[in-house]
């Protein structure tokens, strides 16, 4: 399968199964369009009125060479492989610790319902967190790198426990030959020098929540009293980003139906001075006023194109920034096993509530049907784990023929469940956005590879 598309003046071919990416001229682009339906002579006859004969012959020869080399129209040979891979024993390598089911903001789109996840307010105790880390170590098999995200609600509301758990993890990693990578997700309200200093020493990454322009942020991310949070958090986030040398962090925002022109929010964050930016579509029930709707799609796809073109321009001008959803690693990216097995929710990745209950991921917390066990008992609902384990691109009808399947790995199980009541489906609006993001990410690589003087 070959996916061909034009973006920002580049003609791009993505050979889906091999991952090969080619930037081509118009003649090759048109030849490839006909390749599977006509033979080479027929292609020549069909296009000879449009292109010079010699040029056309060269193009056909070059396409034939790519096919022969396994760089175009390669077959998908991975279905059996991923089934075998999925049969391996489950190990856990990442936990999302819900340090606080409480929050000092009242963001309107919060899937945690102002931090409480449809339940009561609670803070995780050190004992529960310690038992979670012990569980992780005990169930991680030979995996050395273990990830723990301090999440909420707002984890800085319970920061002493965060510090104590990091200290415990550092002690245990030496004993068990593990390497903890801690991360912190925060809304920034309580950020201070002490927390920043601690995070800079101990956190491999920090995620700083802000939506973009002041009016956009303050509309969706107010305090409980209704006041906006922008003016409180921006100076702290700027200081924090600088103190981390503009690395190993993201300012992370959410766009909704109310700011379909979200490229302006991304660029606003870049203009403030942030270099690592992620702004992502809201996940919400269709009935919510801020939910992304089907009819929003053309506008949103155009916004991604606008953003990508601006990023290519800024990069050439020497003023680049990173946009998380346009990151793509063409040379050192994930192996097929990783690409086909998805995010790992419910298997290698679990969320832990303040009470120590396990859920497949943070987005399922609060839905009792998905409670998988407890830090004291371990995983008792192995049927839930097995259901998530069987989730891969070949198990999803919509994914089997999708060109983006090796980039999103079948998408988010929680999105699928929220929209279809089943984790083995795919959230269509999310799919369309993801496909556009993959195209933009590849275009940006093409733009990097070509200087202005070269013919596109």
């Amino acid at each position, binding site marked *: 399968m070959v996916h061909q598309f034009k973006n920002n003046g580049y003609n791009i071919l993505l050979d889906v*199964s091999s*991952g*090969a*990416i*080619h*930037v081509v001229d118009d*003649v*090759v682009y048109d030849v490839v369009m006909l390749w599977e339906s006509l033979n080479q002579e027929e292609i020549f006859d069909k296009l000879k009125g449009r292109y010079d004969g010699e*040029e056309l012959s060269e193009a056909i020869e*070059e396409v034939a060479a*790519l096919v022969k080399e*396994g*760089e175009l129209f390669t077959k998908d040979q*991975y279905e059996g492989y991923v089934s075998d891979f999925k049969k391996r024993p489950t190990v856990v*390598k*990442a936990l999302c610790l819900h340090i606080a089911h409480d929050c000092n903001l009242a963001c309107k789109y919060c899937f945690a319902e102002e931090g409480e996840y449809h339940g009561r307010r609670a803070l995780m105790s050190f004992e529960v967190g310690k038992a979670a880390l012990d569980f992780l170590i005990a169930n991680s098999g030979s*995996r*050395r790198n273990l*990830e723990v995200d301090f999440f909420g609600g707002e984890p800085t509301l319970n920061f002493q426990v965060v510090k104590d758990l990091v200290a415990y993890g550092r002690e245990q990693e030496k004993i068990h030959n593990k390497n903890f*990578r801690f*991360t912190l*997700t925060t809304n920034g309200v309580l950020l201070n020098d002490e927390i920043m200093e601690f995070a800079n020493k101990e956190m491999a*990454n920090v995620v700083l929540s802000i939506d973009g322009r002041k009016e956009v942020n303050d509309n969706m991310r107010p305090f409980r009293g209704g006041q906006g949070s922008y003016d409180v958090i921006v100076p702290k986030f700027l200081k924090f980003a600088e103190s981390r040398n503009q690395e190993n962090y*993201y300012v992370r925002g*959410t766009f909704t139906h109310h700011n379909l022109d979200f490229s302006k929010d991304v660029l606003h964050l870049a203009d403030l001075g942030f270099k690592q930016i992620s702004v*992502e*579509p809201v*996940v919400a029930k269709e009935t919510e006023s801020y939910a992304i709707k089907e009819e929003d799609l053309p506008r949103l796809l155009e916004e991604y194109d606008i953003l990508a073109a601006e990023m290519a321009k800024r990069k050439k001008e020497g003023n680049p920034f990173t946009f*998380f*959803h346009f*990151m*793509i*690693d*063409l*040379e*050192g*990216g*994930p*192996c*097929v*096993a*990783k690409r086909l097995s*998805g*995010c*790992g*929710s419910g298997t*290698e990745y679990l969320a832990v509530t303040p009470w120590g209950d396990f859920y497949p991921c*943070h*987005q399922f917390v609060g839905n009792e049907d998905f409670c998988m066990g407890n830090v004291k008992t371990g995983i008792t609902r192995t049927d839930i784990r097995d259901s998530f384990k069987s989730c891969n691109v070949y198990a999803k009808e919509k994914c089997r023929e999708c060109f983006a399947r*090796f*980039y*999103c*790995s079948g998408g*988010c199980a*929680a999105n699928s469940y929220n929209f279809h009541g089943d984790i083995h489906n795919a959230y269509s609006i*999310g799919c369309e956005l993801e496909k556009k993001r*993959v195209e933009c990410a590849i275009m940006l*690589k093409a733009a990097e*590879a*070509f200087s202005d003087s070269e013919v596109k």
Partner: protein
Amino acid sequence: MKHVKTLNTKRLQNTLKKGGCGECQTSCQSACKTSCTVGNQTCEQSK
């Protein structure tokens, strides 16, 4: 090639033999938390 510029040399089929060590980052731990993004992860062995 005159008409084609290939951007990458890594081929997915070549990762079948050595892949699957599982040491790489879990995708939701990076930034997203609401969307599955795997193609942008870096292979731990290529670091």
